[in-house]
């Protein structure tokens, strides 16, 4: 970037830098190949696999606002839960079980909630914003509990019956159909996220995260941008929630809980924030470890997660992807003569 020359040349160089970053690279095919391969190598684990894919969509939605726009929230489960209940209630109460539209409805409801809450809350920062997002999520959970007739309250929403996907593929106990369904949805959501992140809009978000004052100074409509990305993120979380309701045919208050908001945050921290692929890696690593280790000893698992968080915050700021980056960087250094 120290290229000498006139302004036009330097601008062109900058533009090409961004264009290059946006190009797909070979390594980006890895997670998708792995996902397809997992189906054939671990056919008995597809129920877990489906839940992992859904969780990745959720984590991806959080990365958009946390990793790129720098919005710290302890209540993102509010939108996941809103989507889950929306989809669930559509089937349980109105009898509409077409999976794709029901899932999209969940996304719509999540997005609406996101827009409404974001418009109000994103005027605040720091501890205040943290408390507001947390309180909003809990409030929603209490409301869901009180609206027992609609949500099933504590007992959970039963009676969700989803029609076969595309008219032919039935839901089954082994989770095979839903694995491909969730994978397809994940792919589309990812394409969306990737597009946003590499667009001028996406880059302005990074600017907001870096220095809000300066962004205001250059006339960027900060609040509007934040609300936009927040709404998109909430819609994606709602889609994940809708898939959750469909794949489990059961929704409990837990979908709105602080535990869920906290866990998705941990996925990202473990994988690496602001990398998009960090959502993939962190979620997969966490959920597989939890599936295997939590059974052995719940106390050690909880302790281990706590310790992992502490260690990551102190020593591995970029999560697993960050650590991988520094390893490859050092390896490349050694390659140079």
């Amino acid at each position, binding site marked *: 970037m120290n290229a000498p020359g006139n302004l036009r040349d330097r601008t062109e160089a900058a533009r090409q830098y961004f264009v290059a970053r946006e190009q797909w690279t070979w390594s980006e095919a890895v997670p998708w190949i792995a996902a397809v391969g997992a189906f054939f190598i671990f056919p008995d684990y597809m129920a877990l696999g489906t839940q992992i894919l859904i969780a990745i969509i959720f984590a991806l939605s959080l990365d958009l606002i*946390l990793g790129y726009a720098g919005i*710290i929230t*302890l209540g993102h489960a509010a939108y996941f839960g809103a989507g889950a209940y929306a989809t669930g209630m559509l089937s349980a109460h109105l009898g509409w079980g077409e999976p794709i539209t029901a899932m999209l409805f969940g996304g719509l409801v999540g997005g609406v909630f996101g827009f409404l809450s974001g418009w*109000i809350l994103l005027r*605040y920062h*720091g*501890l*205040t914003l*943290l*408390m*507001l997002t*947390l*309180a*909003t999520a*809990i*409030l929603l959970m*209490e*409301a869901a*509990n*009180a609206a027992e007739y609609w949500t099933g309250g504590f007992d959970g929403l039963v009676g969700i019956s989803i029609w076969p996907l595309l008219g032919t593929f039935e839901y089954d106990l082994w989770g095979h159909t839903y694995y491909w369904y969730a994978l397809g949805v994940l792919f589309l959501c990812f394409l969306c996220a990737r597009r946003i992140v590499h667009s001028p809009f996406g880059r302005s978000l990074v600017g907001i995260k870096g220095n809000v004052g300066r962004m205001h100074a250059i006339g960027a409509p900060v609040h509007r941008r934040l609300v936009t990305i927040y709404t998109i993120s909430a819609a994606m979380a709602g889609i994940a929630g809708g898939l959750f309701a469909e794949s489990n045919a059961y929704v409990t208050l837990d979908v709105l809980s*602080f535990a869920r908001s*906290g866990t998705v*945050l*941990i996925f990202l*921290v473990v994988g690496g924030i602001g990398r998009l692929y960090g959502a993939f890696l962190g979620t997969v690593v966490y959920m597989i470890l939890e599936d295997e280790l939590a059974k052995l000893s719940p*106390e*050690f*698992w*909880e*302790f281990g*997660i*706590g*310790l*992992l*968080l*502490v260690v*990551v*915050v*102190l020593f591995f*700021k970029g999560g697993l992807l960050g650590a991988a980056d520094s390893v490859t960087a050092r390896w490349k250094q050694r390659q140079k003569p």
Partner: protein
Amino acid sequence: MTAAVLPMEQALTAAISILFDGVAYAMLLFIISVGLSITMGLMGFANLAHGAFAMLGGYVLVSLMLNAGVPFLAALLLTAVFVAIVSIPFERFLYRRLYKAGELDQVLLSIGLVFMATASITFVYGPSTVSITVPEFLSGQIDLGFGTFPTYRTFTIVVGVALMVALWYGFERTIIGAKIRAAVDNRRMAQSIGIDVDRLFVLAFALGSGLAALGGGLAIEIIGMSPTFALTYLVFFLIVVAVGGLGSIRGAFVAALILGIVDTAGKYLWPDGGAFFIYALTIAILLVKPEGLFGKA
């Protein structure tokens, strides 16, 4: 949805008992949260693990009473001192590294610590709630003239008010209190006139943790103590601090009172969905006054 509809005299008795229970609960919240308010105001560190000190205090009290036969009041003091001392290495070696770090890192680190604390306590003491037997003179009921009330709750209120007065006096009338207030108001300025802010902070941190432990010990009999205590009540401690305003003792006291009374009244008047009110009220207050009732804007 059954709301309470009572004749006048019964309504008055009901109101007094709600107030009483609410204030007792509020005192617990105040005692535990005031330390968090001071440390967050002083160092701007979002310490979500503060409840773990309260939890530790509760369990140390149980051990002191059951294993070492220490009487209740002495055990309360001992646990406060013990946890205050134990908290110092945490500040020195762990928290200090993150004062300049962003909020997210602080939140994540402290959540990690809570998990570790919860798992450790479960491992040592088991997952169920623990209970103690309070001494005779603190159990049963006591006649206060305008009604009979549970003795233990009366005791809790007395302790809470006494601590509030002591803290207020300490912060408003002593040199150290003045130094802390100065540092909360403007750290750099305070440092530049020679105040050793780091040492002040250790002091405030230890005091806050010790108070939390005291609150945790008191809480066993009223709201129970289990390994999930730190996480369950985390939200309430944060609400007290955020609504009260960082660094304000008065704010923590008032916020705790509001929270305690509204929560108790909500449960009494509207058992089906009483918890709702707290969160709605918190959001309303923060939207209007984001810095809290007594915080600095």
